[in-house]
């Protein structure tokens, strides 16, 4: 199974990292094109990894040549490959967008590029690493790159949001590490799948799993640990918001699924599954209701992230029901992909509005100028996926989740999925209706303060279109996902 030729796995980590270092070394002037080259190289590495997984099944790479438990293994199965690919798409967009967004902002740009590129590296590391402690380091790397991006605006709100985010994320990391310490103490290994084989379902393992999960749920902003997300994600600059919502928070959800399905499957009793699924459901409903109450665009999108992050957790109660497992698994994984692309598109489109108008108050969006129509279109297109309507990837993901829940006879989750979609439509159309509204008598409020570079206009549209491309057929992606899926979900 361990095909050591898959150099693209470590490269997915090293390439963005080295680009970040080069960008730091050479300064803001050189950073954009360096980042562009680094991004393309990383995308090539990811593409190779995905190709290998699709063709030959899961790929393992033993760093330093040391097999686990001694060394750290990078492991790409279908799920990881899917996440890598989604991340690459979003990251490419963020990189292209940020080049234009930060143009002429010397200091901000100087700080943004290395942080963002390291973040990409760390995210790839998070998706690939099969080692619980290495995951801790990667998560910290993600956190410590994310918080400065939140604080970048430097005003009261963003600093407060960053501070809260940082404290909670640090606690989360330590809770996770505490759990990992217990797991190593009990099994003598840090390797994810070995832990799964050795840990069993005893009390100590349960405590460890609870700690690890609590930490990850905090990072993923799952109800009731969600409060930090919306202020943080809405005060970051647009490209960072996109990365935070589409990638960083989703990495937490990804790890929850990864750990429960690979490391603690023995613990996943119906009660536990229902508990975690219930938290996901609460996130969906609570996040949606909060999104309905916001008066600015970016907080609406940020609260929608809280809601969307809840869906994949619905897999956990369904994973143990044979009739539901396979579909729910596909739905959850596809959901993460769909949400990532759509949310990045939405945040970048919102960034365009903010960039042009200098604000994002919903009341001030009436009669938006035609220059912004591409951005509003992108926002609308992305939102269709967030609502889970056809012909988008979000719809297919929701369909699978829903079918799984119904096939497994677990209709409460189906209700949550349907209700969540309706609420998403509610807060989505609240925004779109405002954008559609005619200008008030005093002339258009939304008169652009500055012109939008074409690259910024095009990027969200391309991301949104990707969601539709994935909505035409999920079959290739789901075939990829099947590589190395757990037996029960295959």
């Amino acid at each position, binding site marked *: 199974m361990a095909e050591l030729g898959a150099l693209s796995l470590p490269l997915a980590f090293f390439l963005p990292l080295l680009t970040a270092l080069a960008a730091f070394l050479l300064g803001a002037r050189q950073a954009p094109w360096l980042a562009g080259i680094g991004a393309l190289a990383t995308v090539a590495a990811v593409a190779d990894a995905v190709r290998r997984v699709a063709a030959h099944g899961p790929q393992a790479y033993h760093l330093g040549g040391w097999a686990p438990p001694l060394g750290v293994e990078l492991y790409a199965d279908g799920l990881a490959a899917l996440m890598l690919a989604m991340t690459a798409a979003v990251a490419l967009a963020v990189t292209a967008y940020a080049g234009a967004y930060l143009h002429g902002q010397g200091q901000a740009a100087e700080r943004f590029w290395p942080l963002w590129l390291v973040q990409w590296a760390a995210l790839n590391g998070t998706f690939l690493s099969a080692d619980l402690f290495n995951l801790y*380091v990667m998560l910290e790397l993600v956190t*410590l790159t994310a918080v400065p991006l939140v604080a970048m605006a430097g005003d009261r709100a963003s*600093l407060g949001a*960053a*501070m809260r985010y*940082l404290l909670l994320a640090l606690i989360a990391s*330590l809770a996770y590490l505490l759990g990992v310490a217990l797991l190593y103490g009990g099994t003598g290994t840090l390797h994810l799948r070995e832990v799964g084989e050795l840990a069993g379902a005893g009390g100590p393992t349960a405590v460890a799993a609870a700690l690890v999960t609590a930490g990850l749920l905090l990072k993923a902003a799952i109800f009731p640990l969600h*409060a930090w997300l919306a202020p943080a994600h809405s005060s970051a600059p647009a490209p960072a918001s996109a990365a935070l919502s589409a990638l960083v928070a989703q990495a937490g959800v990804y790890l929850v699924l990864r750990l429960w399905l690979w490391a603690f499957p023995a613990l996943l009793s119906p009660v536990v599954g229902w508990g975690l699924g219930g938290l996901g459901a609460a996130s969906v409903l609570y996040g949606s209701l909060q999104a309905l109450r916001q008066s600015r665009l970016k907080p609406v999108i940020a609260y929608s992230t809280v809601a969307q992050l809840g869906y994949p957790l619905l897999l956990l109660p369904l994973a143990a029901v044979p009739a539901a497992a396979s579909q729910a698994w596909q739905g959850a994984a596809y959901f993460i992909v769909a949400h990532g692309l759509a949310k990045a598109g939405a945040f970048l489109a919102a960034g365009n509005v903010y960039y042009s108008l200098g604000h994002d108050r919903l009341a001030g969006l009436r009669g938006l100028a035609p220059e912004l129509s591409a951005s509003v279109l992108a926002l609308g297109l992305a939102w269709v996926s967030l609502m889970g309507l056809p012909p988008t990837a979000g719809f297919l993901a929701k369909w699978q989740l829903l079918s799984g829940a119904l096939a497994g006879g677990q209709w409460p989750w189906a209700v949550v999925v349907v209700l969540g979609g309706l609420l998403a439509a509610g807060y989505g159309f609240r925004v779109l209706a405002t954008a559609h509204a005619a200008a008030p008598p005093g002339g258009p409020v939304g008169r652009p303060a500055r012109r939008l570079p074409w690259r910024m206009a095009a990027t969200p549209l391309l991301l949104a279109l990707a969601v539709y491309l994935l909505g035409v057929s999920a079959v290739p992606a789901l075939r990829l996902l099947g590589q190395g899926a757990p037996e029960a979900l295959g």
Partner: protein
Amino acid sequence: MTQAGLYTLAASALAGIGVYGLLARRHLLRRILAVNLLGNAVFLLLVAFARRQPGYVDPVPHAMVLTGIVVAVSATAFALALARRYYAETGLDHLPEDEG
């Protein structure tokens, strides 16, 4: 009670104290201190685990702790920088309670 067992318990208690500090105190520096207490608790637990079996010291938890210490000091340094800036900007040494 063995030496490792003793420190294991001490680590658990230390973690509890850290969490209490996080929940009960609001001053930013105190919260950062509490996070560090919690971190120390985790490290102590790992070091104690490494010493559980007679005649054998497990180097892997040691490596984890060493890495953890550097991560902790990095995070603390950044957190302090952020707290200072937050204070300079707002005059507040704590986070206002949940708004909204």
